[in-house]
């Protein structure tokens, strides 16, 4: 008997015990599965160039995409405002999914309500669901603002959010002057980054529409959809304080997704206040840290006479240089010596480790801005970002990536893949392997299939804890990213040299 009270075996060791191995072998005999030889033949074929070509001919099927749908971005950005409850109009199952998805990544609560539309609402529309839903959410959860977005069900039947919200207010669901910004966020258009953009624009419209801007000294900074927001936003705020810049972080989820354990469950914590959001109309400029999350929002900000600028996930040396220079330009504040010193320290670390980084090749996937920022840093280390893939990237992004590759000799063998998925990536790695893969937890299946070590630096990270608490942005974040790459590189060398008496002559103590 394999199990005992002294040493309890759970799934991983338990099912490797002889009793279970025999049982599973017996089951295998009667499952009607292909023979081991047949499976091996097909497995080998899936790693061939022939398969790769066939795979890239796909026009309709998507397998293992690296993107989610609009409402996820909408509820994420809304979570960055003070005491704001997201209300997603449509089917309720979607909301269960967004909440689970965010909780699994942040290991934090995620509180969102649904209007729970069912078949009758599909026929008659969801007005009554909105009326009742807003009243209930307002009464039970005492928000200061309810941000309404939509599931694809409500979009297909064409529910009119503006009219519904107006009617709900007339019926007394929430007070007339209560803030209920909204955005249509159809899942069949764009991805979670589009939803971020749409909802953020909706929130700003709620406060700014019909108002005149009186330009002040402050600048708005929009972080974009970012699984590492807890660490990144705090690092960003530290940098801004160092520079003495007057700013508003427009949607700051850092505290909402990092509440303390002290006996109290805080459904809301931190975030951009509603007063700050209203006042943000008077900013002299708005800076987005993720261009592809904010295209419509920036255009809207620009319509109030604000200067606008956007970056692509400010990571690494030049990414941070650009961040600081842009903030300096927009705010008129110089870059302080303290940050210059931080820059020097990052460069120092990169120089110390350059021999281990030089010439390493990487595959990178994720949201378009992240992939750009990450690839740029890889180039700075003397690495080659060979396969850069964004399922939610477009042709404009791919061109931008190619410009980046062209800017460095290390970009010579690199290519960008917009609109492709992780099954495409599998073919790329099987035929043209890289030393490392940079992505999120889903990448572990690629690591298993093609034996390329995975470095987790992107949302979502389900199978490692607390990564999001530490920044990737800024020079400090650069140090963290650098160390993460190096740890994986050194771990790989150690794994490859650990066999006693065979390879351990290279199992060096000092590297």
């Amino acid at each position, binding site marked *: 008997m394999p199990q005992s*009270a002294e040493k309890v075996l759970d799934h991983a060791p338990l*099912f490797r015990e002889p009793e279970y191995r025999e*049982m*599973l072998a017996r089951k295998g005999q009667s499952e009607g599965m292909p023979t081991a030889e047949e499976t091996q033949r097909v497995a080998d074929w899936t790693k061939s160039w022939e*398969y790769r070509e066939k795979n890239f001919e796909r026009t309709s099927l998507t397998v293992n995409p690296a993107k989610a749908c609009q409402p996820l971005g909408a509820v994420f950005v809304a979570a960055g405002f003070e005491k704001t409850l997201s209300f997603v109009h449509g089917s309720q*199952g*979607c909301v269960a999914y967004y909440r689970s998805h965010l909780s699994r990544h942040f290991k934090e609560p995620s509180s969102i309500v649904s209007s729970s539309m069912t078949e009758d609402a599909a026929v008659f529309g969801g007005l009554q669901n909105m009326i009742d839903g807003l009243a209930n959410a307002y009464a*039970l959860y005492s928000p200061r603002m309810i941000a309404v977005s939509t599931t694809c069900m409500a979009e297909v039947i064409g529910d009119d959010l503006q009219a519904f919200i107006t009617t709900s207010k007339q019926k007394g669901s929430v007070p007339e002057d209560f803030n209920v910004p909204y955005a249509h966020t159809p899942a069949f258009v764009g991805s979670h980054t589009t939803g971020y953009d749409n909802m953020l624009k909706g929130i700003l419209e709620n406060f700014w529409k019909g108002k005149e801007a009186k330009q002040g000294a402050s600048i708005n900074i929009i972080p974009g959809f970012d699984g590492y927001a807890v660490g990144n936003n705090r690092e960003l705020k530290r940098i801004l304080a160092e520079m003495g810049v007057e700013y508003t972080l427009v949607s700051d989820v850092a505290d909402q997704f990092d509440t303390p354990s002290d006996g109290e*469950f805080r459904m809301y914590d931190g975030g951009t206040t509603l007063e700050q959001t209203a006042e943000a109309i008077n900013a002299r400029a708005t800076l987005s840290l993720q261009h592809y999350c904010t295209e419509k929002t920036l255009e809207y900000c620009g319509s109030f006479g604000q200067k606008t600028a956007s970056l692509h996930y400010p990571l690494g040396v030049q990414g941070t240089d650009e961040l600081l220079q842009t903030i300096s330009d927009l705010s008129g504040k110089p870059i302080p010596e303290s940050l210059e010193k931080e820059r020097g320290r990052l460069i120092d670390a990169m120089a110390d480790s350059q021999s281990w980084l030089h010439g390493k090749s990487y595959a990178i996937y994720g949201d378009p801005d992240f992939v750009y920022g990450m690839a740029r840093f890889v180039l700075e280390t003397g690495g080659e970002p060979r396969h850069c893939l964004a399922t939610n990237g477009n042709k404009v992004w791919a061109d931008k990536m190619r410009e980046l590759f062209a800017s460095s000799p290390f970009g010579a063998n690199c290519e960008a893949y917009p609109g492709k998925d992780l099954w495409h990536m599998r073919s790329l790695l099987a035929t043209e392997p890289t030393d490392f893969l940079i992505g999120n937890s889903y990448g572990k299946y690629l690591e298993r299939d093609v034996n390329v070590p995975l470095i987790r630096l992107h949302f979502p990270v389900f199978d490692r804890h607390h990564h999001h608490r530490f920044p990737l942005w800024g020079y400090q974040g650069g140090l963290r990213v650098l160390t993460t790459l190096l740890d994986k590189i050194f771990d790989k060398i150690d794994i490859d040299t650990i066999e006693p008496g065979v390879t351990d002559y290279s199992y060096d103590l000092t590297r």
Partner: protein
Amino acid sequence: MTYDEEDSGYQNDGAFHQQLIADVLAAYPDKSRKRRQRHLSVAKPADEEAKTEGTLTECDVKSNIKSIPGVMTVRGCAYAGSKGVVWGPVKDMVHISHGPVGCGQYSWSQRRNYYIGKTGIDTFVTMQFTSDFQEKDIVFGGDKKLEKIIDEIDSLFPLAKGISIQSECPIGLIGDDIEAVSRKKHKETGKTIVPVRCEGFRGVSQSLGHHIANDAIRDWVFDKNEVHHEPGPYDVNVIGDYNIGGDAWSSRILLEEMGLRVVGNWSGDATLAEIERAPKAKLNLIHCYRSMNYICRHMEEKYGMPWIEYNFFGPSQIAMGLRKIAAFFDDTIKENAEKVIAKYQPLVDAVIAKYKPRLQGKKVMLYVGGLRPRHVVNAYEDLGMEIVGTGYEFAHGDDYQRTGHYVKDGTLIYDDVTSYELEKFIEGIRPDLVGSGIKEKYPVQKMGIPFRQMHSWDYSGPYHGYDGFAIFARDMDLAINNPVWGLFKAPWKKAA
């Protein structure tokens, strides 16, 4: 107290629970209060007649009706019930999340349905196949795209035994005819293709998705392909075990030790062949009654196959279950069942000896899905723990009736509980452990209350069977007796 004290050893404070219910209802607007109050109740002693049939209490709440908008229901949708629960684990088929990208993305690899196979080659469970609907698919319809997708799957995944089409919300709204596509493509490819109308807006929860998924097995799998299978006298199907963390394996080993042959396991680690041959078995053993009773009833009507419910959580129920199953067969099997029970008794004794002193008297609140809100009750009680409250996301009346076989008088019962209610109940009761899902985990832990996810086994498991019980006991102990819970208050706050 009026309830049967025979084996209870503890009692619940029904009056206090009634007060908690009154308190949470007070927060609702009138219309919603009226609707919610019918879902909240306190278990009352069963009448004498019911008691003689093993019923302890009556858990009288309304269930399986629409959730109220805006209250933060924990429920999911029909797609989750079909793709996420019933079909998704069938390992040698490709399951297309048909519609926009999100549903498949959020449910990708999240149910821990363990299986053996070469993923992407001969098995496909932990993959996300989606038609990734774009605006043009909504406007012009997705049937042509679906045809193309089936061709692409056929060419890139040639060892897939079949395909299921898991409809997301838009499919039913835009009038796509996925049944016609399925018939056409079945003719062309010869493979099993199963259209499932599990659009998320159908029904009121996951539950209708289970039902629709069951019906799809009936309509699109049974009696379609020739079945090559030599039936035996001890053939059984395990129905409604999704092999979460290996649950079906730690159950199967017991059934095999008894001398039974498990010819189908639905649907954890299942192959299409296991589903196709199921009607040739002697008996259906159903674990998750809620999600798969439909197909058992169908097999009973159509093929004359009997089915019985069993419970493999905790030694009391396992022994009862093994005997109940054995009673259906001859003396050899009955003797074997006794041998199995005897064989594992020392393990059970050792587990209880080790963990019961650490867990005795600890109060537990549960809020889960299909069967666990009642099925795990005795497993906790075997460890000396007490169930003070329980409820289901998507139960029907027959589930609550069955819950009365398990819970004590005064137990707080909550159907389709809202986050507001659950938080207030937990705050009021301050149990020693809450067992629920990922969405509940972190709010509860922030309150300083130990928590275990009882959908995914919190990434542990299996919890079924004797081997699983040891893990269950270990996990409840490590959740409750971790030192972190003692560190919540800063020392200078304690002094104040």
